[in-house]
């Protein structure tokens, strides 16, 4: 939490929203939480504007807490709307997360309990790192991502923007995952994935986006 602001507006809905609200006593550091619950994704941008309209961006930081809908575009919509209104996004870290000193973490990121993030890791804006995630040295995680609980990302791996790494997925060292990729079947992965590759329990083979 920033020491210069007095309150944090937690805006969103779903499991992530509920988890952060429930853990606020561990995260607060004297800061007041303003929980602003959105009804759904349908009018999230308009509702975000309405809920933040009376708050002062100089006194309030925000955290957009929306789950993985639309490969994190739904959370990005809320976060981007707040940023356009002049709010800065905060990043939150569970006190039981272990983060090396030279790790770079962007705005609107959440680092869950028991996560271990090694030195040299870079995490882009609007990224959710779940409980007990392990990220190896030098890995680069693009913006607007989601790493599910218990997943691991090998040393030096790179992930493009808008990804979903599901629970208990293990990405090998040096692996390159393109933009807009979903890997939501637990297991070890050792092959690079092109942009727009979706590995999901609903599909026996990966779905792929083709064309330009």
């Amino acid at each position, binding site marked *: 939490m920033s020491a210069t602001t007095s309150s944090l507006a937690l805006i969103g809905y779903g499991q992530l929203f509920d988890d952060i609200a429930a853990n606020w006593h561990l995260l607060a550091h004297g800061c007041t939480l303003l929980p602003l619950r959105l009804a759904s994704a349908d009018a999230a941008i308009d509702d975000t504007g309405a809920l933040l309209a009376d708050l002062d961006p100089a006194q309030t930081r925000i955290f957009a807490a929306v789950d993985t809908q639309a*490969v994190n575009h739904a959370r990005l919509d809320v976060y981007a709307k707040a940023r356009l209104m002049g709010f800065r996004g905060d990043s939150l870290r569970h006190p039981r997360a272990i983060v090396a000193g030279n790790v770079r973490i962007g705005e609107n990121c959440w680092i869950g309990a028991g996560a271990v993030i090694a030195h040299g890791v870079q995490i882009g804006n609007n990224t959710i790192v779940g409980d007990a995630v392990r990220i190896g040295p030098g890995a680069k995680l693009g913006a607007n991502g989601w790493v599910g609980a218990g997943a691991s990302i090998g040393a030096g791996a790179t992930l493009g923007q*808008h990804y979903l790494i599901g629970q208990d997925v293990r990405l090998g060292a040096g692996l390159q995952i393109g933009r807009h990729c979903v890997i939501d079947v637990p297991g070890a992965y050792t092959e690079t994935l092109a942009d727009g590759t979706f590995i999901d329990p609903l599909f026996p083979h990966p779905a*792929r986006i*083709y064309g330009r």
Partner: protein
Amino acid sequence: MTMYLGLPQSDYIDPSVFAREQTHILRKLWIFVGLRTLLAEPDSFLTRSIGGVPIVVQNFDGELRAFRNQCAHRQAPLQLEEYGQRKLTCRYHGWTFDGAGQVRGMPGEHRLYHYSEAERAQLCLDRFAVQCIGNLVFVNLDAHPLPIEEQFSDELRGQLAQISGHFGSQAIHAVMPSAYNWKLNFENVLDYNHVPFVHPQTFRPLMQKGAEHEPHIPTDTPPVQTTALRELSFAGKTPLKIQPWPWHALVDRFGNEDAYYNYFLYPNVNFISVGGYVFLIQQFDPIAPDRTDVRFTLATARPTQRIPALPAIFWGHLKGEKRVLDEDKVILEALQRGLHAGGPVARHGAYESQLRRVALVYEQLMGRSA
């Protein structure tokens, strides 16, 4: 009237019937292979298997050419990926081929091969006919291809060209192995009466309710006695509730109706569009008598400006369509498991007259009756 008897159960389980379908239907008719929008770049290609024959369709200077996807040397596949972009070059020994299918280069030719001039001239790929209807690419493996207008009417081809002209330049593609005969899935999509029973939560709620929207088959409808191949492929349209999404304002929609557009392309394609915003081609690719690869290719209408969330839009719609397919799959796989030689045939009612037409043409194509 009128009860139409379906095909014998053996037609859905017998390997010899399946083998005959490969030669008499899939290698005779025009078969959809993919979208031209995904083959727009030089040397872009797709690979498929039609009737057991591996093919590659590749862009040579803007023209699509189809070849057997086997090198003239040792029959290794020339292209491996389902879609891609690279020269037509064998990965095994580096032979390269030109747009006519002739071998252009053989690394180490003068040191290693010593073909005579006449022998070298034989080193060419088998070429197949390609036709595009709008953005839909079809291939025919027959040495004397059927004129495509005998399979798809002028009117239908015009409609397909118009609607597929609205496709964006990207599409999401998925293959779902299924444990049933390919004909069951084509029959299933023709049978609109299964929707309230099989898709009560997914698809049915989107359909307009009320007596005026309920199909009613007149009792004096003449029975189907004969039919022609081109009558098996046709278009339909049903009113549909379209859930509005912000991105709808950012695409060049086909038409302006809240409708479910439905195109049946014999032998194995069902092409649908939800409101002219989303297009799904589902193809039932025969793999074995009791195995079908259901191939989904889903596109949106052409964006009029950049839509950053387009990949997520593809993914969301694809998942929705897969859930609908899975509801059909439960029924069709159970149906397939129960089939046995000598079992009773389907007994179709008046509303299933199109299934009767399909059966009549199937018998003709298989050379079993007039």
